[in-house]
């Protein structure tokens, strides 16, 4: 089912949690709602679920306007960060509870619950209480409970944040598998870029209540629309430097000159931000985009992480392990086409 969000705004008193948010989510996709803490992504999810009323704007499920519909009428399945399982009920009762409310007959709802339990691989734990389950198992039960009503949309609020590192990887693949099997349109909230990148079809990136970009994971990484998106994605973080365009060249603070094809489209004297991913920087004799000084090197095994001084900025670069550099050595810096971005200093918008 397609979800259309038009100019959605949510205000709490004087603070605006979500600001004029418009996006379209295609049917059957797995969408990650990504952003730093407090960016409004959970608020966004709660508005889609109907738990929070909307201040302005509209939400459509396919062609149906659900903006003023109460949560139970929207046909959504919701998984909470702390799973919200009923502690006094067994796994089977928990999964069957949404049907119990709908007054489905016991035999029927238990059969359906067992089917759901099988889908999420908890069918051997049906008689346990939530307390007797591991975090990952609780998560599976919560997903089964959300799916039993055949929801039009499955919403997950930080589904993996309460799990340990190894389980997190296992569970995110499980979420992908379950979503692929059920083909239900799914939105999950996360602040973990790796989580979002690895399993989602599209990522919706938010900051301070504003939508930043909607794109496929690789596209988001390769073609960020602004400085924030570039900063937010990637590990190690992108190298960020500031400078001014002079004579068609970029002069970084501290006087380092960078020769850049992309600089041609900028105005003379414009202040810009040059962001470079660590893997886009080469330290090579032949390429001469800029000159830098090796500040520090860390052996990583297959490669070496080098800190290189470019003007006032210390940037991270990966260099092949077979090359040896000494501290303080002057080197030529090359910049690849991919992973090097120019942003306007004031607006943060992408220039090239």
């Amino acid at each position, binding site marked *: 089912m397609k979800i259309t969000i038009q100019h959605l705004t949510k205000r709490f008193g004087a603070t605006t949690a979500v600001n004029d948010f418009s996006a379209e989510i295609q049917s059957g996709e797995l969408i990650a709602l990504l952003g730093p803490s407090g960016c409004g992504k959970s608020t966004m999810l709660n508005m889609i679920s109907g738990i929070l009323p909307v201040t302005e704007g509209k939400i459509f499920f396919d062609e149906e306007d659900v903006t003023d519909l109460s*949560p139970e009428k929207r046909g*959504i399945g919701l998984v909470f960060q702390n799973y919200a399982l009923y502690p006094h009920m067994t796994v089977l009762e928990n999964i069957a509870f949404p049907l119990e409310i709908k007054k489905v007959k016991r035999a029927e709802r238990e059969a359906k619950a067992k089917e759901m339990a099988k889908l999420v691989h908890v069918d051997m734990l049906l008689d346990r209480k939530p307390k007797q389950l591991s975090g990952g198992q609780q998560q599976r039960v919560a997903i089964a409970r959300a799916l039993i009503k055949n929801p039009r949309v499955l919403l997950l609020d930080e589904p993996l944040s309460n799990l340990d590192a190894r389980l997190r990887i296992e569970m995110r693949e499980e979420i992908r598998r379950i979503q692929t099997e059920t083909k239900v349109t799914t939105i999950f909230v996360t602040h973990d870029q790796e989580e979002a990148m690895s399993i989602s079809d599209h990522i919706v990136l938010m900051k301070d209540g504003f939508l930043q970009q909607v794109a496929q994971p690789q596209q988001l990484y390769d073609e960020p629309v602004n400085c924030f998106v570039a900063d937010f994605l990637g590990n190690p973080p992108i190298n960020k430097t500031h400078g001014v365009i002079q004579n068609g060249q970029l002069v970084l603070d501290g006087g380092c000159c960078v020769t850049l094809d992309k600089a041609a489209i900028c105005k003379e004297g414009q202040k810009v931000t040059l962001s470079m991913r660590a893997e886009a920087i080469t330290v090579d004799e032949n390429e001469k985009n800029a000159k830098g000084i090796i500040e520090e090197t860390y052996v990583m095994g297959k490669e070496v992480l080098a800190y290189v001084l470019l003007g006032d900025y210390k940037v991270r670069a990966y260099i092949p392990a077979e090359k040896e550099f000494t501290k303080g050595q002057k080197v030529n810096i090359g910049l690849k086409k991919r992973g090097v971005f120019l942003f306007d200093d004031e607006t943060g918008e992408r220039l090239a």
Partner: protein
Amino acid sequence: MKKAIHHFSFGKLMVYLFLILGGIIMIFPFYWMITGAFKTTLEIQMFPPRWWPASFSLDNFKEAMRMAPFGIYFINSVIAMVSCVTLCTLTTILGSFAFSKLNFPGKHILFGLLLGLMMVPFEMIVITNYRTVIDLGVYNTTLALIIPFTSSIFYMYILKGFFDSIPDSLYQAARVDGCSNWKYLWRVMVPIARPSLVTIILLNAISCWNSFLWPMLAVVNRELRTLPFGLYAFVSEGGAKTELMMAASTIIIIPMIILFLFARKQIVNGVARGGIKG
């Protein structure tokens, strides 16, 4: 065992001595009452006191039962207690849920005012309750024993505390599934709060069973009296026959002692949690 002896320090010894002394002080009235119930008139007035009755005859119990209708008092007590506890538990559950999970204007102010009422001593409320009961026209009926105790701010406060600790996400999860407030309360909140509820019911049952001042004011007819008031009346009407009084008292506390033996853990937990109610 050996290890325990090794670590038996002087401080610990003092602590145990103190606890044993406290235990004796607590148990002594019960001991005196129960042995007294078996003594003859002569034995109980002896000085120095006799610690043990010469023979264990049930004559005092028979005599006490003959002199006052304790059977009727007992039934009255049970009716009053069961009605009070049932109604009070119901209103407590509904009130706590409203104050804990529902949003309505003036919620915090209202709850603050109700809490403020807890500061007013019971003896003062008695006067207004007395007027109310007369105005309602139920003075000197069983209803008069029940009506003032159909709600309790104290228990509501305890239960609200427990309801508050149940995460809101449970409520939201149920709401998303189309669960009504009513269904959510009885299907989710109440089962989760069962330990707290049991405690509240027990504390309430004990205080109802023991209540004295109000039954004395609210009813005058002999056949409407509850046990504690009946006992008092028995003493004042029948003269100071100490051994009969002891026998009657022993009969009265038996149900509470049985209740305590079965539900000791919950009662102790409840008193520890409530902190103020003895």
